[in-house]
């Protein structure tokens, strides 16, 4: 492993992605978020397994073409109409739509998140009254879109669930706060700020909520170490969890 040329995730991933000949139906392009080397996560030892040369892209489910199936098409139509009423074309607000495992995800551009959220809440045919919070995900390999904020929403009226995902680059981690539309997201946005460093602009009091106020760093980011100390057990030393050899 040590004499191997380092390959940037995006480079290696895209290379392999473009050489892939089979893509799932309805998928336009592969969503590469990173690349995996070898069979084990720990890279400090020598390559005794022979699997060290393995390079595999990490591919998330790609965009879905219409028809989405179930009630998803009707809901997407409603969103499109409502956005058009507000002078916002669907293609401007929504980056892509992913239908995977029976769940629909709208990837919304961050500058249009507030308009999108109010459409979801206010349109009678949509009526997603409840936002079940926001969760951050850090994809260091997804260049320019490293930080994702994922909002699960629920409509009690129509008994439906929908997911909105917003991305922002690590260099400019700003996403508008939707607490003005969904006050429930107050603490959830604080939590996501605490753990990922995403700044929710317009939040009434964006402070840390779980970690102490003076804590350095944002612990749930992938570049933040887990921490831990080696433990001695019956004469042998067990390394902390993030330094143990693991299978990826």
């Amino acid at each position, binding site marked *: 492993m040590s004499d191997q040329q380092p390959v940037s995730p995006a480079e290696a991933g895209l290379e392999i992605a473009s050489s892939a000949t089979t893509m799932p139906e309805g998928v336009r392009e592969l969503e590469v978020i990173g690349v995996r080397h070898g069979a084990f996560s720990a890279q400090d030892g020598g390559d005794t397994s022979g699997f060290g040369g393995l390079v595999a892209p*990490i*591919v998330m*489910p790609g965009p879905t073409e219409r028809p989405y199936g179930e009630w998803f098409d009707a809901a997407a139509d409603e969103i499109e109409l409502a956005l058009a009423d507000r002078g916002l074309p669907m293609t401007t607000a929504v980056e892509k739509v992913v239908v995977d495992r029976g769940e629909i995800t709208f990837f919304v551009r961050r500058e249009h998140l507030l308009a999108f959220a109010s459409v979801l809440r206010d349109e009678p045919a949509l009526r997603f009254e409840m936002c079940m919070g926001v*969760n951050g995900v850090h994809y260091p390999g997804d260049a320019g879109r490293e930080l994702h904020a994922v909002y*699960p929403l629920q409509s009690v009226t129509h008994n439906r669930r929908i997911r909105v995902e917003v991305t922002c680059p690590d260099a400019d981690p700003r996403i508008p706060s939707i607490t003005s539309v969904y006050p429930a997201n107050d603490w*959830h946005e604080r939590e996501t700020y605490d753990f990922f460093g995403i700044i929710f602009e317009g939040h009434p009091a964006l402070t840390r909520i779980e970690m102490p106020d003076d804590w350095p760093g944002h612990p749930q980011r992938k570049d933040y170490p*887990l921490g831990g100390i080696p433990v001695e057990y019956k004469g042998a030393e067990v390394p902390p969890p993030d330094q143990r050899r693991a*299978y990826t």
Partner: protein
Amino acid sequence: MTTDQSIADEGIVYEGELPAEDPYALSYETGQGTVYTVSGGDWDSISSPDEGERERIVVNMGPQHPSTHGVLRLILELEGETVIDTRCGIGYLHTGIEKNMEYRTWTQGVTFVTRMDYLSPFFNETAYCLGVEKLLGVTDQIPERATTIRVLMMELNRISSHLVALATGGMELGALTAMTFGFRERELILDIFEMVTGLRMNSAFVRPGGVAQDITDDQVARIRETLPLLRKRMKDTTNLLVDNAIWMGRTVGVGYLDLAGCMALGITGPLLRSTGLPHDLRKAQPYCGYETYEFAVPTEDTCDAYGRFLIRVAEMQESIKIVEQALDRLQPGPVMIADKKIAWPARLSIGGDGQGNSPEHIKEIMSQSMEALIHHFKLVTEGFNVPAGQVYSAIESPRGELGVHIVSDGGTRPYRVHFRDASFNNLQSTAAMSNGSMISDVIAAVASIDPVMGGVDR
């Protein structure tokens, strides 16, 4: 006594400047005015408000306080006994469970999630496992018996959780008999948990693909024997409170939050149902075959702490009905998915020391089948790969919607797991319920939310 008297008689009152030698009771000037630290016995000296200014003090209640339902810190702005503003300080029980799970296999994750909301471990486990199974696309392959056992354990857990809600809620409002009764009946259920899983709490019993251990006929019979006693004692406990004038005086009309407030704040569970909306995920978006069980969703329309109490009482009765139905429909069969690439290979049995692996299984892998040993080793050390993607799976925990957002990058370990714990979200309503009320009502309001700080902070 005499010493105190003499001090009062001599008129020794700490006025203005506090003695410099008392390091625990200092006062200092800030941009917000003078800040006093009260060390006891010196209240009179600092409680006189400035002329023309209303007396407003900020009181830190908790995190170490017997009435704040765990390590919850309430920051109360008070004018006399009236609460002007309420803020919650949380994070005292943050243990980094979500981060830790990213460094363990999918199955090991169960051991972590069971420790989040420590009053409803089976709900945490089931929500997580349903999410993992959805990611794997094996939801349909979970054996019927495993699903029934999950329902059985969850409903027993709902009763034990509600019992603690009544017990601690009662204790916080001064009804100590309710506490001793509630905890006593909870023991009956914890005994069942111990019998079935080996542990009273944090059992890590529900695993991706099924459950860790089958339930024996003997155990089923003992659960059946326990139910009548549980029913009788639950009645005793609730009779203590239902028509209790003091209890009603403390809870009726207290902690008011209507439907609009609940919707805006994302409130679910008994709080939402106390506004009259019969929203229960077991009915609305059934999982684990809840659509095949007969039970009612109790609601009240009082929007107050008393209504929530009544709902919890009624829900316990409904849960007993579900437990009986689940026991009736337990058919012999596997309790782990047939897919050998996912199913946990180990079998457990009680050895001489009260714990341990099944001797038959150890004999098989150690002396009969090399392939079985390799398979066991691979699954236990490496785990299984979960196809890349993300899911959100939600179940109805005793406190409301317990949602789990799981992201997989195709590896043997979760890429990101986030729990949308109902307590975390519902605790946001403390201010809406408490502002303008008396301090004593804050306690009743928080007790009616029934937050579990292990779930709030994770």
